[in-house]
């Protein structure tokens, strides 16, 4: 198992490098660079622009920039953000944590919402509760995240139950550690809920369909023929098998959570990677953008790795293949 994890982690490196290379090419292919906007300013002379371009290394071809960046990465130097005038590492550190926590909380939300509702929908198939759940999840899927975020903002503003934006209240530093945690969760609740809604809607339908499929399998009939009580048949024999496709989906969900976070973070002003990526993209800040994209690809690949490990944990057939290659 350890060998497998190490192998997978090592295989992350070339993948991340390839993603970075691709991103560099794309950024280079886009017209203009970080200084284009500045050069439109009549008060800034073309000489200043040229010297700045040399200073930032933007006059070099993209592959030189790429290799410089890779060399920097190897020593833990993520480069310099031109627009913030700070090292990239300083910028993204806290934001990575914020976004990761947001993603984690919304994942937990999605699972706690979707598994029970999915099971209910499957057990009461074609009954009114199933129809309500299915239509409701379809409704949520057809809402854009932007709309849901605005709705959440409206709710927070009109009810006053939740803070609008940010990760912490004023005077956060003076709170006890437990109060710090509850304060953070209080702030994270709405953005995480909005972020998890779409995923829950997908998961509810997924759990329903796979559980229905599993419940029609022969081994469920065997379990019933043994005289096991219904809840044991459904949860021990049914749900355990139905969770496997959900776990496979979960690997990709982490990355899609991030793309969902783009909108939610910007609208609800959550200081995370999503809003930072948008800033980097708009101001054509190459190294900052690279760091954001690298984080996104690590999240995707790491999520898949995590899903594989979880699957090996829940499905003995996966384990068996690994044990005897």
């Amino acid at each position, binding site marked *: 198992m350890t060998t497998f994890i190490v192998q997978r982690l090592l295989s992350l490196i070339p993948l991340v490098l390839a993603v970075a290379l691709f991103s560099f090419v794309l950024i280079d292919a886009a017209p203009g660079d970080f200084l284009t906007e500045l050069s439109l300013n009549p008060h800034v002379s073309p000489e200043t622009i040229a010297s700045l371009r040399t200073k930032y290394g933007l006059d070099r071809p993209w592959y030189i920039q790429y290799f410089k960046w890779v060399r920097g990465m190897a020593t833990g130097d993520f480069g310099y953000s031109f627009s913030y005038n700070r090292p990239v590492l300083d910028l993204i550190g806290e934001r990575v944590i914020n976004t990761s926590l947001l993603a984690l909380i919304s994942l937990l939300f999605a699972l706690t919402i979707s598994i029970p509702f999915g099971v209910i929908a499957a057990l009461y198939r074609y009954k009114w509760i199933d129809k309500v759940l299915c239509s409701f999840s379809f409704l949520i899927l057809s809402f854009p995240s932007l709309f849901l975020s605005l709705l959440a903002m409206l709710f927070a503003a009109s009810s006053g139950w939740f803070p609008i934006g940010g990760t912490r209240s004023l005077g956060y530093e003076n709170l006890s550690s437990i109060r710090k945690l509850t304060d953070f969760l209080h702030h994270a609740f709405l953005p995480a809920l909005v972020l998890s809604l779409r995923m829950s809607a997908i998961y509810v339908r997924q759990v329903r369909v796979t559980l229905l499929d599993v419940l029609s*399998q*022969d*081994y469920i*009939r*065997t*379990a*019933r*023929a*043994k*005289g*096991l*009580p219904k809840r*044991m048949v459904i949860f*021990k*024999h049914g749900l*355990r*098998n139905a969770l496997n496709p959900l776990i496979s989906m979960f690997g990709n969900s982490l990355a899609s959570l991030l793309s969902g976070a783009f909108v939610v973070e910007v609208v609800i002003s959550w200081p995370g990677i999503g809003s930072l990526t948008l800033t980097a993209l708009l101001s054509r800040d190459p190294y900052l953008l690279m760091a954001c994209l690298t984080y996104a690809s690590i999240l995707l690949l790491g999520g898949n790795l995590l899903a594989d490990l979880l699957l090996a944990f*829940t*499905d*003995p*057939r996966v384990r*068996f293949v690994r044990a005897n290659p």
Partner: protein
Amino acid sequence: MLSARFHDYDGVLSWSAAASRRLRSGVETSTTPSWRKQAKQACALQRVPGELLLEVKNLQTHFSLDQGVIKAADGVDLRVAQGETLALVGESGCGKTVTALSILRLIDEPGRIAGGSITFKGQDLLRLTESEMLRIRGKEIAMVFQEPMSSLNPVLTVGDQVAEAVQVHLKKSKKEALRLATAVLRAVGIPDPDRRIADYPHQLSGGACQRLMIAMALSCNPSLLIADEPTSSLDGITQAQILDVLARLKAEFNLSLLLITHNLGLVAQFADRVAVMYTGKIVEDAPVNAIFKNPKHPYTVGLLNSIPRLSHGNPRVRRVKFRSIDGNVPDLLALPPGCTFAPRCPDRMAKCPMSFPEPTPLDARHIVRCFKFDPQAVPD
């Protein structure tokens, strides 16, 4: 290890009673597990041979589909006595499995049991509540299914799957249940059961999976075992081994067996009585000798004629080409009027398409549903 190999080899050669006796007197009696002893004692107290155990009367199991109602079981009558083996035979789709699942009340939507009675040990199973039924399933009536591989849960260990019924029905702790599971696995001839209980079904062969199914079914010492084509998906040698196990344990525990099959060779070896089923009805019910030596219903005759005989190359055996029954099993949504076998029947009479013949007793144990044997029927 030696005993296990001996056992398997023995199974390959023959599963005759003599071989089983030799087997039991040889290796296994010295290490008879307490499970067996207890189970045997329980059987000796409760199971009086010949006493009526299960009686199915006029069972109606219907499936309501958009296209119409399928009567998968349409007035099925069955009787299984204590210690008896009843073989339920018929072509695919004639309602054998539905009948078995109806006895356990495992018919799912859109199917439902529309009528009749299923009397088991004096109580009508159709009148029991679902929670009372849970105490019958697995404990009193157990079932072995056709596809052992897909009938086992892939994510639970072998030991867990055998032990869970023991935990539920016999109220044993997990540890005790696992110990009992090991004993039952040994009894069905799975080698090295102490290690196998930690395995998952995909690590076992098809034959071992079916042994496991039998172990699961027998773990709570049921009175009636329903075996739904227990060997159809296995190869010949494994079939023989599985049948050996079934025969041995059946004799040991005086088990009653409802054997669902379309393998008439199996019927000849195993059954005490045979019920022949066609389009949801029992058309002939007779002791096994009568069925093979003196079949009455034209459908039974047709079934027997369709067995290929191994006469090739043997000069002493007359080469008999096997004949199939003309036509196909009718669509259950569009059954022919009257006797459903009439369109395929070589002895068809004018009144056959008018109505389905009632059961006619030829003697105390031989019942047939055909106008040829109905004394009230006026010959043409």
